[in-house]
């Protein structure tokens, strides 16, 4: 009975925090749009630097878009816990009866819905400019979908560790980028392999497995990090 009660509290905790963060994001659409524009601009820098040759763009498209997506995710991660830290909401979360890992997961869910998911949806538009075939674009979206889930979760640990520190943005990148490399490797390579006519199952399975792994462990690491940062 009490178990049921606790899990109900956890679910409503996750959803409550997520709903609140989504509402906050809705009221400040710039927070969602800026990383998207950033993504599109970084992706646009490469053709300008490399040259307009369609073969070259087709070849480097998956890699460029994945790197741009990774950087755009990093950009939005920095503010994940910042405003809650500044206005004291985080203190309330720390003393809340709902487990901190659940509340952190709710915030991460909202973060993914406002940064990861929009990237997945915008990716096809950018992919057109890289002359990417339709079915390859589908795989690009699928890898981005799985990869950004892991990135949000992994990033929440880094954001929790660096919340309240000065010069947090550069530090956050230093912490998260090496950890994110498996996601980048499998994400970008899988799309490249599909574009070259190879199978994608292995890479997709890896990305899915990694998403499950981060989903299982990252919320607890995030909670531990939030407690340490708020001491």
């Amino acid at each position, binding site marked *: 009975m009490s178990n049921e009660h606790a899990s109900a509290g956890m679910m409503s905790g996750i959803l409550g925090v997520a709903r609140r963060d989504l509402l906050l994001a809705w009221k400040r659409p710039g927070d969602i749009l800026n990383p998207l524009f950033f993504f599109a601009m970084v992706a646009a820098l490469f053709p300008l630097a490399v040259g307009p040759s369609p073969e070259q763009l087709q070849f480097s498209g998956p890699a460029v878009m994945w790197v741009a997506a990774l950087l755009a995710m990093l950009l939005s991660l920095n503010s994940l816990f910042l405003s809650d830290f500044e206005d004291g909401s985080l203190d309330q979360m720390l003393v809340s009866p709902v487990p901190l890992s659940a509340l952190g997961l709710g915030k991460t869910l909202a973060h993914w819905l406002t940064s990861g998911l929009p990237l997945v949806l915008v990716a096809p538009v950018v992919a057109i400019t890289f002359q990417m075939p339709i079915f390859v674009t589908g795989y690009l979206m699928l890898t981005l979908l799985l990869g950004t889930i892991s990135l949000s979760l992994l990033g929440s640990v880094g954001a929790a560790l*660096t919340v309240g520190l000065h010069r*947090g943005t550069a530090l956050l990148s230093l912490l998260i980028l090496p950890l994110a490399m498996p996601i980048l*490797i499998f994400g970008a390579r899988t799309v490249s392999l599909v574009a070259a006519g190879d199978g994608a199952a292995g890479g997709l399975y890896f990305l899915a497995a990694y998403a499950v792994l981060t989903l299982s462990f990252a919320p607890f690491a995030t909670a531990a990090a939030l407690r340490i940062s708020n001491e």
Partner: protein
Amino acid sequence: MWKFFHQMASPPHFYRIAAKMIPWFMAPALMLIAYGVYAGLFLAPMDYQQGDAFRIIYVHVPSAYLSMMTYMVMAISAGIGLIWRIKLAHAVAAAAAPLGAWFTFLALATGSIWGKPMWGTWWEWGDPRLTSELIMLFLYIGYMALRGAIDDTTKADRASAVLALVGAVNVPIIHFSVEWWSSLHQGPTLIKEGGPAMDPGMLYPLLAMIFGFTLLFGGLLLRRLRAEVLFRERRTKWVKELVLSGGK
């Protein structure tokens, strides 16, 4: 047993004991490395494929092994520090990180120097171990950057411990994913079924170097740890007495 650990975790006791232990690490380390360098450079037979260039493994292999080992030492002691709140364990992690970063750098540098005559390039992205070693270096840099950014020692200890543990979970995954990425590096010759595939004249200096480097790491870690303990305890009475008595 517990009493021993308890005593070791007390900073003044550790500080004294460590000073006595350092020579026991350093002396055999220097002997083994001296033998390894001499035997490796002059006595070991030339490799029939690689000529004299293979001799760089006498630095490369121990460094590469220690770059991984040090991360393990760092993550395990960070975990111990986080779970049982032992300050000395956190100090071990903090003292080990720069050593690990240097070993990683050494492994990368020697690997790249070896790569020039062997592969014809200083850097080969197709080689998974070179790449995962580079990511390893980034992990150490991130760890040290996080420590450096937090002023409060206790907070820095615990935050960096979380990062070290998250990193430790990721290291095998990074290794595997880079491996999948593509392979060029020669296969393992040392740990293999049916014994190492290596001439004994080449093997013994290498083993001497591996053990020598490990002991050197132990000795250096203890030295760094003494300094770290002294810094952390700088406001305590025993450090004051130590300073006033001229370090005796």
